[in-house]
């Protein structure tokens, strides 16, 4: 019996990482939480109305199931964000501490999910939740920082791709170039640096290590939307100029 439980828990923790994609795993785990949480709410309401031993046992079992699904869903969500960052294939140093912390938070959620299954009594549940609420705030913040880190990584990926595209285009251009074209290439290189600086500034203003609590503020996300939109506009303008250069000088007869 114990062996089968161990195998089951092992399967829950490790099978999704092998068989499923991060997104589908998260969808599944969150679906489980959405199923169990309302049940727990109903049973808890019953118990608070009629505090019988039977109702207590029912709600404890339901609470354990809900906690398990909640922390597995959080772990999957963290993995999903890490996967998104990983897909950008960037090595942007300012977000590396966030990536490490988010990976640690994922381990925390997995450990809590496992720990929740040791709850037997109402007192156990109370202690578990008390300890959990004290330490979970940090990990929940890491998810928020992870979301910003993913956006930063995507912007950086675009910068890398754009720079590669520019060098590729320069190699295609004829040897003797008009002065205007040379000036436009120089202008593109300078503009790319301006965008790089803006991304660095956005990363620096995250204050991940200095002011972690800033993630609790309501403006944590909204204050960064405008900056990201500005960078996106600059990148769009940049690539339009590059494509214009390409059409006029690298492929005029295509």
């Amino acid at each position, binding site marked *: 019996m114990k062996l089968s439980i161990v195998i089951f828990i092992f399967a829950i923790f490790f099978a999704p990482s092998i068989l499923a994609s991060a997104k589908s795993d998260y969808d599944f785990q969150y679906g489980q939480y959405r199923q169990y949480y309302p049940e727990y709410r109903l049973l808890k309401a019953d118990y608070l109305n009629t505090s019988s031993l039977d109702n207590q046992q029912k709600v404890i079992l339901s609470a354990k199931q809900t906690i398990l699904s909640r922390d597995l869903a959080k772990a999957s969500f963290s993995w999903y964000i890490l996967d998104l960052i990983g897909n950008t294939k960037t090595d942007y140093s300012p977000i590396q501490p966030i990536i490490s912390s988010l990976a640690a938070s994922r381990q925390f959620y997995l450990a809590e999910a496992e720990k929740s299954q040791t709850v037997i009594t109402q007192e156990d549940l109370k202690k578990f939740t008390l300890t959990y609420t004290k330490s979970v705030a940090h990990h929940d913040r890491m998810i928020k920082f992870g*979301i*910003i880190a993913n956006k930063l990584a995507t912007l950086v990926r675009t910068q890398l791709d754009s720079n590669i595209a520019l060098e590729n285009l320069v190699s295609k251009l004829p040897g003797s170039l008009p002065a205007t074209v040379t000036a436009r290439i120089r202008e593109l290189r300078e503009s790319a640096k301006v965008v790089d600086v803006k991304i660095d500034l956005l990363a620096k203003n995250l204050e991940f290590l200095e002011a972690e609590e800033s993630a609790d503020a309501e403006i944590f996300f909204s204050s960064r939307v405008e900056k990201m939109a500005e960078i996106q506009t600059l990148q769009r303008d940049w690539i339009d100029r590059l494509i214009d250069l390409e059409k006029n000088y690298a492929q005029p007869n295509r």
Partner: protein
Amino acid sequence: MLNLTDKITNPEAIKLINDLKSGAFFVPLKAKAIRYKWFIISGGIITVLLIALSIGKTIFRGSDKPVFLPPDIGVLQPTFEKTSVSDYEWIRQNIINFGTELPDPVIPFFDNIIDLESDNIY
């Protein structure tokens, strides 16, 4: 003058000639004409009307205004502007697809206080 009775020996033909001469042949025809006179009159009127319509149509065709057509300038050929797809279009698409709304992905709601004591109702 040719005398028909001298040469025609068929009694039925002779009788017919005599009937024509005496006018006896036309008596039954006259009776039929009187009997169906309204049909004959109606037929006559319709015939006259059809002839009148035909004449009127011919006169009208003759008085048609001449139609002026524009000179034939041939079939217009649509002009195609040669379009070329950039090798870097995918970068532009990536930039366009980049979502600036935050949080993205959306953080779902999780209840961190799961116990039997609190009465936190969401």
